[in-house]
């Protein structure tokens, strides 16, 4: 799996810090895939309202060097509450006997 170039490490850290990339798995040490990084850059560019190039261009570089609030832009999604119908289906599945 292609990994980000070393010089982009700072970018990856920034994207993780502000919620555009999930944190790396501390157990496996799995690096972010380049596809994921590119996708995150696109999301970040869209959020910031700059040209969506998917690469670390001048405008994106300028943006990540700007002073900012340290809270993430994309909050980790919380488990959605199940609707009544979904809940009933799960209960039915649980109560079915094994073959």
């Amino acid at each position, binding site marked *: 799996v292609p990994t980000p170039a070393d010089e982009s490490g700072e970018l990856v850290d920034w994207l993780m810090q502000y919620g555009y990339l999930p944190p790396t798995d501390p157990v496996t040490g799995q690096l972010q895939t380049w596809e994921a990084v590119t996708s995150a850059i696109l999301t970040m560019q869209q959020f910031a309202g700059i040209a969506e190039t998917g690469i670390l261009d001048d405008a994106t570089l300028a943006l990540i060097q700007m*002073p*900012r*609030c*340290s809270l993430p*832009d994309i909050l980790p999604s919380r488990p959605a509450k199940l609707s009544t119908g979904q809940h009933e289906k799960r209960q039915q599945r649980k109560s079915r006997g094994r073959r």
Partner: protein
Amino acid sequence: SAGLAWTKRNISWRVKTYPRGARLSRETMRVLMYYALRVWGEAAPLTFHEVGGHSADISVEFLRQEHGDGSPFDGPGGMVAHAFFPGDPQRAGNVHFDSEEDWTFRAPDDDGMDLFAVAVHEFGHSLGLTHSPSKRSIMRPYYQGPVGDPLQYQLLADDRLDIQRLYGSRALHSTERPEVSTLLPALSALPRDFPALRSADHPDRCSSSIDAVTQIRGETFFFKGPYFWRLTQGRHLTSLRPALIAGFWRGLPSHLDKVDAVYERPTDYRILFFSGPLYWVFKDNSVEEGYPRPVTDFGLPRTGVDGAFSWPHDQKTYFFKDGLHWRYDEAAGHMDKGFPTHDTPWGPMPSPVDDVLSGNNGEVYAFKGRQYWKFDQHSLKPEGSYPRSIAKDWLDCTEEPYPPSSAPTSPMTGARPQPDVRAPLPEAEHCVCYSTSTC
């Protein structure tokens, strides 16, 4: 929004710590926080009131680098501030500013970080709003420079709608202002000192006894004659000169000679002034309708009181007069049974006392003449190195009031006062800087 909001609409706030060596004065920072909260209170039916002590809903701190919340700061630039959402179980209401930033106010765009702009953004988080992709939103995550005069600043439509989705809308009449209670001076008056004084007829703080002392919103006020001195939450005298009581608390008679006691009512943060047979109730700096009223409303003697204070330990208010004391239940609205009595929980206390004050941690201070005693919050006994000089410990007077050889003994313990290295060392803030050019 983050999907969570405060369930209450009456939200307390305080600035807990300030940056060292900042170019803005503490007073300026507090005023800017007040105006930043007012921005949100103008759009939504939220009431903000400043409090002292440790239990504010929104607690503002200036911190640096790693500070224990998992979001370390990184020095100038980069991450400048953060705040936690109302749904955060441990950190809700915490608002942190990087103390290593160069916080400014009314400075050019590229000169430091505009504290008001950042504070409005962070308070948005404290109330439940997340970052916005809108380029004009105050909730955009990137610092966009100053946003103009805090007195005139208003939320843009999108931000207004976002906060109203969480809390509903505030229908204001054109002359109404949202309620953000505080005792701060007007922003336009900041560079100047507190109310102007007539010539030099005011009392000398270093040689005077005091009539009353109180803590309001965490600040300490000493009253003498028609004047008062004010100390910040960090016990810094805001001005060496006293200000006129009636000039600051609008509604007291201008000919008022003195006040006997003042205290902040814990149930609604109203401020009560006692002078002779009368008392007044203030909401911030303005008197409430229907006052003054006789002190007999409380079940007190018509001659008035020597002192009064509210004790956070039991949420009761204690009144003192001629060696007697009463205990008033603010929630029930009546005196407790068994009072008045000579035996105070704090003993022995000087009698008659000029006034009594409670500190943030429940410790109690009794003032008489030019001296004060401190009573431990646990044992309720006077601490050994007291009495000490009011002027020296509280009012920024440097001279030794008593030569060591003639130091008086305590009327209670018989002990001579000893130096106490734990005592506060007041510093005076004499100037307010708005930019490097005027500092």
